[in-house]
């Protein structure tokens, strides 16, 4: 039976969906530190699709690859709890300031090192940028086809995959050979929950550098258990052209950032009394806004 080698691309993101008042600093900029860092929601949908491939072809392996600060190892652990086999944290100051193109270049270099992949899955987009660019750009860098806006694997054989894609006003079923990169839409099924046994097994998984930081933990958590080591790759671990990384490798630059300020209107306050609403409706009709 075919054993698929699956790579899931994931990102740890600030939870921008719940930006409350305390998340904005006095000067109006966003205070990232108070926002919880979460597994990008659509990347979890992608993990679910990877797990479904593994359900069907049990010998398959799932490697989660994330690029980010050391803290991003948290989402690799989360991936282990839900069924991933391996996790790689791509972390280096050299990646700082990457736009989507520099990010996809670094990820593609890391994927080349993983080698022999059949399927790469990732979320359509991350909630902190909503660009939906990294998936297709990684596919282009690797020279493999892409299927975006995927909702469901319709059929899967050892050499072909059929995917249902969600379009603006309908669906499309497309077929591809391997390797292929798939970006998963927000309308795809949610990821299965954590598995209790895996939670116990992997809760101490961490990167080597993190463990060495605290020698005590290092001893107590069983340093011989290689499954508890999250691989940590720096720029020296991947073959890449340094000029294409980070801020310097990013063609797009942020010229400026403005806070969103809406021009307040002079609004008329009404109550829900009959008279108020009567007057309002009359006004709308006489000024031909309605009617």
């Amino acid at each position, binding site marked *: 039976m075919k054993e698929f080698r699956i790579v899931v691309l994931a990102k740890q993101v600030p939870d921008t969906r719940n*930006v409350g008042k305390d998340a904005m600093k006095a000067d109006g900029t966003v205070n990232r530190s108070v926002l919880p860092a979460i597994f990008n929601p659509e990347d979890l949908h992608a993990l679910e699709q990877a797990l479904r491939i593994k359900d069907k072809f049990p010998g398959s392996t799932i490697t989660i690859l994330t690029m980010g600060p050391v803290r991003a190892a948290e989402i690799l652990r989360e991936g282990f709890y839900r069924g991933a086999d391996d996790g790689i944290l791509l972390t280096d100051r050299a990646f700082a300031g990457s736009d989507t193109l520099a990010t996809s270049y670094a990820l593609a270099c890391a994927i080349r090192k993983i080698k022999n992949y059949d399927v790469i899955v990732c979320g359509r987009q991350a909630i902190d940028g909503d660009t939906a660019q990294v998936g297709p750009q990684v596919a282009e860098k690797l020279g493999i086809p*892409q299927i975006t806006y995927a909702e469901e694997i319709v059929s899967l054989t050892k050499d072909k995959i059929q995917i249902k*894609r969600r379009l603006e006003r309908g669906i499309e079923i497309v077929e591809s050979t391997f390797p292929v990169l798939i970006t998963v839409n927000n309308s795809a099924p949610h990821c299965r929950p954590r598995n209790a046994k895996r939670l116990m097994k992997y809760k101490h998984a961490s990167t080597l550098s993190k463990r060495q930081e605290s020698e005590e933990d290092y001893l107590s958590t069983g340093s011989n258990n290689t499954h508890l080591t999250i691989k940590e790759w720096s720029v020296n671990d991947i073959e890449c052209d340094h000029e294409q990384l980070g801020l310097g490798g990013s063609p*797009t630059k942020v010229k400026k950032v403005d*806070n969103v300020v809406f021009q307040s*209107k002079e609004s008329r306050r009404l109550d829900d009394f009959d008279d108020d609403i009567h007057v309002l409706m*009359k006004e709308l009709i006489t000024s031909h*806004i*309605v009617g």
Partner: protein
Amino acid sequence: MNNVIVYCELDEGKIADVSFELLTKGRSLANQLNCKLEALLFGSNLKGFEKEIFPYGVDTIYMADDKRLTPYSTLPHTSVMVNLFKEEKPQIALMGATTIGRDLGPRVSSALKSGLTADCTELEIGDHEDKKINKIYKNLLYQIRPAFGGNIIATIINPDCRPQMATVREGVMKKIIADPNYKGKVVNLDVSKYVDDTAFVVKVIERHIEKSKIDIKNSPVIVAGGFGVGSADNFKQLFNLATMLGGEVGASRAAIDAGYVEHERQIGQTGVTVRPKLYIACGISGQIQHLAGMLESSIIISINSDPNAPINKIANYVIVGKVENVIPKMIRYYKENTK
């Protein structure tokens, strides 16, 4: 060479509205830059479409007419665009932030190692001074987009790479014919020179496109509900009011996520941008991501039990009260006054 190019998207045999909106914006950018506006049209049976495109002030239409280019598929369209761009070296390339544009754009930008900014809400021409290298860049494309869940607005530039690429969502820009008699030329591309047979590896097996039944974008009146409406059942009132006023029902993302109404009704940055004559916001608190999609409505009425809801700041009328009390009264008084 060095012109502004717009990718015109075919949607079920018709040119998508967003493409006309981008041609309109493209014309004004080309005027400022003193260059030509050019259009790309890839698909099959394209003859005749030029008549629809030229009036937007298009100087050249590059047509790639081949039955294998319909329906859209990533690799062949990428290949034609990348190879053409290598020859034509446009300074700006625009496409819709649709399922097609957001599939094609990043692929093309990666192949050309050029920057792409997704979902721009404004495009302007301006200069940029890089103080570090003491260089002034003239006439760059300012790609303005909300970021961070809509909480900030970023201006992005691509100082050194060309083309400067951007996608824009449908409805964000206006579509205006420049001159009904505008004359340009059609360049028919020899598709076999632009696409290799190996680009056809991904096959479209099936397609089901539904005719869109909901058209909130063009509705003169929108009654929109938020999470505060409370339930799908409570939305019925909104439908009643909308129907009576000849409008449509919209919703905030929170209401959509709660499953109150269909996804197609979402208004905001990740939904549809609307600018109706009248916008009645019911139980919508007014997160930035929602406001960005309805700010240009002529008249805004906010019905909210919270007198301090953020949306009230941009409303012309604020009715402090419960949606379920207010709407029946609006319906009643409307009927009384229009007899």
